[in-house]
């Protein structure tokens, strides 16, 4: 029962609001069901199933607000939940950043955000998929460690000002690391879908297995500045970090890579290579997303960077009112425009460079320049004259996605990863600062 219909969800929410005596009240109901299975050393390690539904009630008296939630849905429990939210609201100090709840909103439809096939996954199906993946590695005398995780659910909102929202979502994640028996080679593949129909464990396992065997015998080459091809799985985290730093308030306050000397922000300025265009679109069938934000604001198509120019920054509702900035919520996923070339095509067009499968343990070093450090992992190769010549030992990098997107050589065809569409990127002068012995 964790996936309620719109009517079922709104019936509960209407009842919740009817119990409130607060000046304003908003209720959010979420439910999901799902499961996971994990493998290592070509055998199952752990597996589990989780089903849950939760109600959150936010009550407001003037500029004071409080939130309570419950997991039980009889009338007495719902009433208690509303009363607790109201009690906390009375205890809380007034917020100088208070903004009234939103009234009725209109939201885009994004019907492909839920797939019944994903919601119907069973423990047997998970076991079969991870079993087939392990068997493939066993045949090749390789060792696999994988993770399969699925969930399906809904989010519904309603408030005393007339706002009403409902959407169903589903998700499936699969990732696999394949290592050679002697531990001298390692490969990786990852995928993320809304609909189970697109899932192919065998294809992903073969990708990781091929990388494992071809990464054996890695040579050490000097750290320094290299042209790199970052596969989407290597590019996504640095780009995610950059997208997460596009808050207008931090920029206005002078503590962002988008702050301007002397005050203000860099909206409207060219900050990246002119081939960089990034937008979000919750209705994109390849990466469908929620069409409303947590505070009820609509999620629509927003261009964040166009031809290297910063076009929009996201904001809280309070800061939008105070600063006059367009009232745009932060997006869920994002889409970076790319070209038509595959990673293989990018390799063919590279005289000298390094192919990077995955980056690991990425941490901020300097928020002023968005400098990050981290390491390559699970398949790093030297490219010469358009071909992969040999595997190389892993590197530590110290690099900023801002510098990276100014040193852009080429973009390939975007693929879905972690709810975003990410192209492979060819970057010049990517900074590797030391070698790692890790495989």
């Amino acid at each position, binding site marked *: 029962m964790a996936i309620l219909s719109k009517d079922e969800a709104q019936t509960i929410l209407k009842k919740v609001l009817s119990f409130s005596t607060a000046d304003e009240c908003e209720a959010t109901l979420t439910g999901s069901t799902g499961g996971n299975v994990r493998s290592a050393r070509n055998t199952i390690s752990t597996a589990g199933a989780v089903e849950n539904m939760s109600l959150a009630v936010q009550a407001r008296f003037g500029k004071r607000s409080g939130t309570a939630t419950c*997991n039980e849905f009889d009338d007495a429990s719902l009433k208690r939940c509303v009363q607790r939210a109201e009690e906390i609201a009375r205890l809380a100090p007034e917020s100088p950043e208070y903004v009234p709840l939103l009234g009725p909103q209109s939201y885009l439809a994004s019907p492909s955000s839920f797939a019944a096939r994903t919601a119907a996954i069973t423990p047997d199906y998970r076991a079969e998929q991870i079993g087939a993946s392990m068997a493939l590695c066993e045949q090749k005398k390789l060792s696999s460690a994988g993770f399969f995780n699925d969930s399906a659910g809904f989010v519904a909102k309603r408030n005393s000002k007339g706002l009403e929202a409902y959407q169903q979502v589903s998700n499936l994640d699969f990732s696999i690391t394949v290592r050679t028996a002697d531990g001298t080679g390692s490969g990786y593949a990852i995928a993320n879908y809304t609909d189970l129909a697109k899932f192919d464990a065998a294809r992903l396992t073969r990708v990781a297995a091929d990388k494992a065997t071809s990464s054996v015998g890695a040579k050490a080459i000097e750290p320094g500045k290299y042209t790199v091809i970052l596969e989407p799985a290597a590019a996504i985290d640095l780009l995610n970090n950059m997208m997460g730093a596009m808050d207008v308030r931090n920029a206005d306050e002078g503590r962002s890579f988008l702050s301007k000397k002397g005050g203000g922000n860099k909206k409207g300025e060219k900050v990246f290579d002119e081939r960089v265009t990034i937008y979000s679109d919750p209705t994109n069938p390849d990466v469908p997303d929620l069409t409303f934000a947590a505070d009820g604001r609509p999620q629509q198509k927003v261009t964040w960077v166009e031809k290297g120019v910063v076009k929009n920054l996201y904001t809280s509702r309070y800061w939008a009112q105070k600063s006059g900035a367009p009232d745009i919520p932060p997006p869920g996923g994002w889409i970076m425009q790319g070209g038509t070339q595959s990673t293989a095509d990018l390799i063919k067009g590279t005289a000298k460079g390094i192919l990077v499968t995955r980056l690991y343990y990425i941490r901020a070093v300097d928020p002023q320049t968005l400098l990050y450090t981290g390491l390559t992992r699970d398949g790093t190769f030297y490219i010469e004259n358009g071909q992969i010549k040999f595997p190389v030992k892993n590197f530590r990098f110290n690099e900023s996605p801002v510098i990276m997107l100014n040193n852009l050589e080429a973009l390939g065809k975007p693929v879905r990863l972690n*709810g975003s569409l990410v192209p492979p990127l060819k970057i010049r002068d990517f900074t590797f600062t030391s070698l790692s012995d890790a495989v």
Partner: protein
Amino acid sequence: MKRRDFVGLTGLATGALFLPSFPSLGSAVDPLRLLEPGLDVAQKKRLADVGLNAAKSAGASYADVRIGRYLNQSIFTREKQVQGISSTESFGFGIRVIANGTWGFASTNNVTDAGIAKAAQLAVQIAKANSKVQKEKVQLAPQKGYGEVSWKAPIQQNAFEVPIKDKVDLLLGVNAKALDLGVSFVNSILSQVNEQKYFASTDGSYIDQDIHRIYPSFGVTAIDRASGKFRSRQALSAPVGMGYEYLTPKAADKVAGPTGSDIIGYKNSYDMLEDVAAAAKQVKQKLTAKSVVPGKYDLVLDPHHLGLTIHESVGHPLELDRVLGYEANYAGTSFATLEWKAKGIPYGSKVVNIVADKVTPGTLGAVGYDDEGVKTKRWDLIKEGRLVDYEKIRDQAHVVGQKESDGCCYSQSWQDVQFQRMPNVSLQPGKTPLSVDELVRGVDKGIYIAGNGSFSIDQQRYNFQFGGQVFYAIEKGKITEMLEDVAYQANTQEFWNACAATCDERDFRFFGAFNDGKGQPSQSSAVSHGSSTTRFNGVNVINTARKIG
């Protein structure tokens, strides 16, 4: 909120970053209600038996259940205002079984006889489904049942009983002090955790535990508008396994850094107002501090900084599940394999003595029993530079010929399966009397680093890079000036073999990691790391300053 829940719902890691306020499974409740007694022990035992019996009836050869009530309260502020007060409660039931030699797990918030029985049957169904593709059957180290026992963290003042107003006043007082001293921005936070856990297993244990954690912290930022430069300095507090008494400063708990450094460290109590005053002064100095010249330096690392280095370069590589390959797809493996250990290669210099423990009062790792019903203990990991042992749980002990678990199994909540997590891992203080000033006196060209900053290490725990909060140059045995843009890169074995000296127990104190991530789905755990100020010779320091447009 719990990040995974939203990620799981939407499939967007970014969504979790951008949309932090969708409600999750934790229930925000009136803090006063958190003081109401939950189920009594007799009720929990009866419900636990329902689960254990249902699992056995469905074909489980072993089962354990955890009935948990997890309370969290966080207060967030910035400058003169409270940004949010969140009090959450999460209550539910998780059951782990072995059927056909394979693990299965299921959890539910429907803590009724019917809900528990259904979860038990689902856990067995999962185990049986997976057993068809299972190669290695689970081998569980024997564990005697303890009968009905209990353990309570030895706190003096339950933080959940302290009025919210008092906590808000403390944080806003910290902010006011920072603003008075001229910082551009300040934020502060107080997080409190109470785990009320009931464990029962088919071995015959019924264990009731009450665990507390608290973490006060702040960050101050100074901005030079003309140059566009900004710098921040985070608190030198540690998350601890204590009650609100941690926030009553005691003079005896304060430890001065080296002369000239302006650093004060804290042991079992924390002076938040004193620290923020120091931070406000230091963050402004950071704006104009000299950019470090890269090269080899002798590093003098304070315990608040070194704790994280211990965590990453000793704590993680000695987790036996990583060593064996069970974390290969996510957290990684380890250079410190069983074969590597057998070679007797020095992990560190003779100065390096590192112990694991789950028993030190006031630490984040301290519990009476772990989450698979094993009584906790203290044991050696590295003795005089040699690796002597790992961190293990019940299904791993047989791999190293051990008859029993080390007792470091943990789950972040009732709804997640328990697995091997890091115990407290601490560098033992030097046996020879040595003060921090005496340690610095011997350094010709070095850097003193206080507080933890950026941290990153590879998936086998060889190559790491660490930053810090405050850096001071050491020249000819004296602190001379503040430095900026400092990070050091090293290899774990080279680094620990370059360990030249560590101060005595007068300087020993704990740093903590409040949210250590591991596992798929990822789980968080809390762990402490003790050390005294320690010197490492000839470490490679890089300059992290870059330019963007």
